[in-house]
């Protein structure tokens, strides 16, 4: 017992020390941002992706503000665990960060942003798309993307394809089932016949499932809502069973350079949400600089994760500078400044409503074409013709 | 008090007990003899519930035991010892007896435990580790002690005397006698040494190939030619 406490006291003393060492930054014009992200655990990949975007935003801001202000970000791995995310946010706030950018997975962002709200510190993210998050109406919570945006893009594409029958194959996690259900409702309302197929994360052989789609549903299009290894499994099964469909459509982490590289023959003609074409064909100067910096820092083409991470952080930095100029930063004026945001960004126009959600958010759809990702929806952003009907087989 | 009728036990086709039938009266002492593998221990296992018979009746004081688990039989008053001593590990001698008393007799009676320790001459070993710090005699004594601590009315002793040299054997015998009279127990003793049996038990059962081949007073039984045949060499007549 006494030993217990001795040990406890000792360890915690070191803790206190470390907290002290990482204490608030010295000068006023030196802004410290906090970032809580999954760098290990199931979400490690996406977490790291977003973190790259954040780093790019910081780098670009420091270049732009050279001489005047400087920005730093201190990052803590939440290990894809809500409890650790909360601890991370508290530590960062204890270290005196101006605001928080990051967070992945609605179920982790939930408690993490709650902790930030308690401390009155801004938490901006693009890692959790569920309505519940903005539904809480926190004053300090901001999000640049949402389920609706993904659903809109998928539905939009499906309607361009004039699909009459759609089979939705979706993972039984929160974000994925929310999106799948939203797609079903909207499409059914528009008179499209939709059949739903839920699957579990441990599924590795999708043939029985796809065979059901092939023999029972006979849809025009198969809509997939999951993550990388789910897509790979589904597409392989489809490639084997060759159901008579006109297109295979997915959402996030599908139309990416990574997938194009890892599974070239499997991805051909597959659709997925993507803000950028690949290789990136940027026109606006900001986008070009973004791509260049990304290349410089990580020696690879930017992907959608990095892009979202970049946009959310850039908007945050802009707001910080505005608030600082107006002298309201110290007085907690940052949330109001962020709410005034109205910017054209890499992901389109961004404004924030009272709940911190971005009503303008609409995703874009890309299609894998010969190792490239070509934007095919909406027309406004399309940089190539959609191949339709077309499948990987 | 205990009645067996036509009890059968099969181990994968091998008949360990063939329609064994006998009764034990209150306070009676019976010697159970027979060559190795005759089924003596199996008989004890059946009575104490370690082995389930494939057929037959088994009543204790008018109640059938067949459906009861070992521990319930122990609480009814059937105490047994194991041929190879099985002390309770990680426990002292006294703790062995305490466990037996708390669970077997459902009482808490230190006097009786001291009494048992005294009778079995384990007093000075009371606080030594039962598993590791006992000599063979003491192990055998503890086997009896555990059974006694459950306040049994029937005591089944499996070769508690075997492997003891004559002097300690005599002493142990006397202790057993004392125990029996002190607690007015019925006893069934498995034992190879005929004189010991004769001295302790007015009645003897002979088991051979799972069958009871003789039942009666020692002198009568041990003159029975069939018994002698079954026993060739093993008896000291």
């Amino acid at each position: 017992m006494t030993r217990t406490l001795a040990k406890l006291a000792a360890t915690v003393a070191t803790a206190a020390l470390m907290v002290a060492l990482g204490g608030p930054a010295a000068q006023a014009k030196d802004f410290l941002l906090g970032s809580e992200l999954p760098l290990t655990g199931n979400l490690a990949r996406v977490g790291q992706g977003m973190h790259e975007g954040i780093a790019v935003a910081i780098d670009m801001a420091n270049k732009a503000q050279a001489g005047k202000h400087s920005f730093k970000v201190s990052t803590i791995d939440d290990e894809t665990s809500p409890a650790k995310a909360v601890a991370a946010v508290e530590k960062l706030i204890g270290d005196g960060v101006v605001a928080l950018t990051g967070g992945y997975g609605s179920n982790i962002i939930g408690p993490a942003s709650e902790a930030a709200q308690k401390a009155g510190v801004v938490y901006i993210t693009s890692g959790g798309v569920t309505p519940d998050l903005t539904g809480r109406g926190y004053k300090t919570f901001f999000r640049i993307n949402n389920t609706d945006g993904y659903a809109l893009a998928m539905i939009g594409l499906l309607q361009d394809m004039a699909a009459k029958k759609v089979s939705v194959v979706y993972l039984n996690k929160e974000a994925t089932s929310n999106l799948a259900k939203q797609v079903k409702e909207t499409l059914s309302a528009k008179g499209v016949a939709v059949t739903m197929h839920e699957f579990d994360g441990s599924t590795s052989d999708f043939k029985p499932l796809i065979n059901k789609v092939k023999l029972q549903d006979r849809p025009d299009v198969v809509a997939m809502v999951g993550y990388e290894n789910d897509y790979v499994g589904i597409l392989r099964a489809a490639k084997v069973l060759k159901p008579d469909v006109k297109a295979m459509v997915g959402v996030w982490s599908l139309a990416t350079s990574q997938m194009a590289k890892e599974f070239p023959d499997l991805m051909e003609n597959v659709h997925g949400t993507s803000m950028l074409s690949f290789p990136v064909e940027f026109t606006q100067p900001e986008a070009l600089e973004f791509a260049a910096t990304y290349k410089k820092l990580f020696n690879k083409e930017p992907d959608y994760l990095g892009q979202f991470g970049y946009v959310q952080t850039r908007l945050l930095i802009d707001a910080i500078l505005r608030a600082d100029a107006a002298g309201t930063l110290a007085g907690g004026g940052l949330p109001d400044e962020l709410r005034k945001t109205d910017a054209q960004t890499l992901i389109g126009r961004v404004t924030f409503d009272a709940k911190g959600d971005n009503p303008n958010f609409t995703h874009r759809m890309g299609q894998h074409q010969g190792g490239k990702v070509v934007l095919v929806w909406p027309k406004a952003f399309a940089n190539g013709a959609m191949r339709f009907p077309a499948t990987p087989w | 008090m205990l009645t067996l009728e036509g009890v059968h036990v099969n181990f994968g086709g091998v008949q360990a007990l063939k329609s064994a039938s006998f009764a034990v009266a209150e306070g009676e002492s019976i010697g159970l003899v027979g060559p190795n593998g005759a089924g003596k221990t199996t008989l004890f296992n059946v009575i104490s519930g370690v082995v389930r018979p494939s057929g037959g009746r088994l009543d204790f004081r008018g109640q059938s035991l067949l459906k009861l688990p070992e521990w319930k039989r122990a609480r009814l008053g059937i105490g047994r010892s194991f041929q190879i001593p099985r002390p309770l590990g990680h426990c002292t001698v006294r703790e062995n007896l305490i466990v037996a008393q708390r669970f077997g007799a459902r009482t808490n009676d230190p006097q009786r435990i001291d009494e048992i320790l005294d009778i079995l001459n384990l007093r000075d070993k009371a606080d030594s580790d039962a598993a590791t710090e006992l000599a063979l005699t003491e192990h055998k004594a503890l086997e009896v002690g555990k059974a006694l601590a459950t306040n049994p009315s029937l005591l089944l002793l499996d070769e508690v005397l075997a492997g003891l040299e004559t002097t300690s054997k005599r002493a142990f015998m006397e202790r057993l006698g004392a125990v029996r009279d002190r607690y007015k127990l019925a006893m069934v003793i498995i034992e190879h040494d005929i004189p010991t049996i004769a001295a302790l038990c007015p009645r003897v059962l002979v088991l051979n190939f799972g069958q009871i081949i003789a039942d009666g007073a020692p002198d009568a039984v041990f003159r029975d030619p069939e018994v002698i045949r079954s026993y060739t060499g093993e008896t000291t007549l």
Partner: protein
Amino acid sequence: MKHAILGAALLAAYVGVPLLFGGTPYVMGLIVAALTIAGVALAWALLGNLGGMVSFGHAAFFGVGSYTSAVLSMKLGVPVFAALLLGGLGAAVASVAMLPALRLRGPYFALAILAYAHIFQILATEMTPITGGAGGLLSIPRFPTLFGLEFGGKTGGYVIILTIILLSAFVYDAVRRSAWGLALKAMHDTEIATRVIGVPSTHLKAAMLALSAFITGVVGAFNAHFISFLEPDYAFSSTWTVLPIAAAIFGGYRTVWGPVVGALAIYLLDQLVFKPILPHGHQMVLGVLLCAMILLSPGGLLPVLLRRRRSEGGRHAHA
């Protein structure tokens, strides 16, 4: 003398720690998280030490406890502290479903329990109307303010989990010293020898399983109200099994306080030292500690420390 030490320790735990770290929520949060692990580790060790059963599925009890408590307090408005106990009860009831597993030996039991954990997790995911499905439950009611003491915060949470652990340890110790404890210890080697002297061994094991489940459930329920958030993957996460086992083994699962010491040491080391050193996969260090402990000092850390303190006490430190 002994009482003086104990008193001082309690004072330090209840007053000292909050005074020291109450100001830094981060550290307080870490301590609470460590104690949460400690609670499960204690329950796990109880089952292993007294019941002689290794479980790889304590996450099942943790999850059931947390969901029971959360759902009762959210949907039926049961007071949080009452829900906490009901959570433990729920876990104990769940353990009844596992009674058949008691007939199983070593690895069979360990993984049968693991299978249960999987099943409960899947059920929690599929029973959407009650559990909120994969989305889980957001903003679960926090601990209320009683007699002017605000239990909702970090320090309040600390006091609650500390109390849970002390009570559990007390019960554990009482059982261990009782005739039940003796019988259970004896059972490991020769179960039959205990049965023929009237010990209903299976009942005793069942009781230990239920007790272990109850404690784990209460701790899980505490965590649910402390974090005020639940989802199947989190509530039934294997970390609720891995960390406690590591902690118990590290501290010494045959002692009462070993698991608690182990949990504090392992968790705080992991979060404050290993994590900064290797952010990716620093759990590896836990694995190394686990193996090293098993190979070098299977008794765990605490017995070694104790033995160093008083030269005798081999058996007692072990008992």
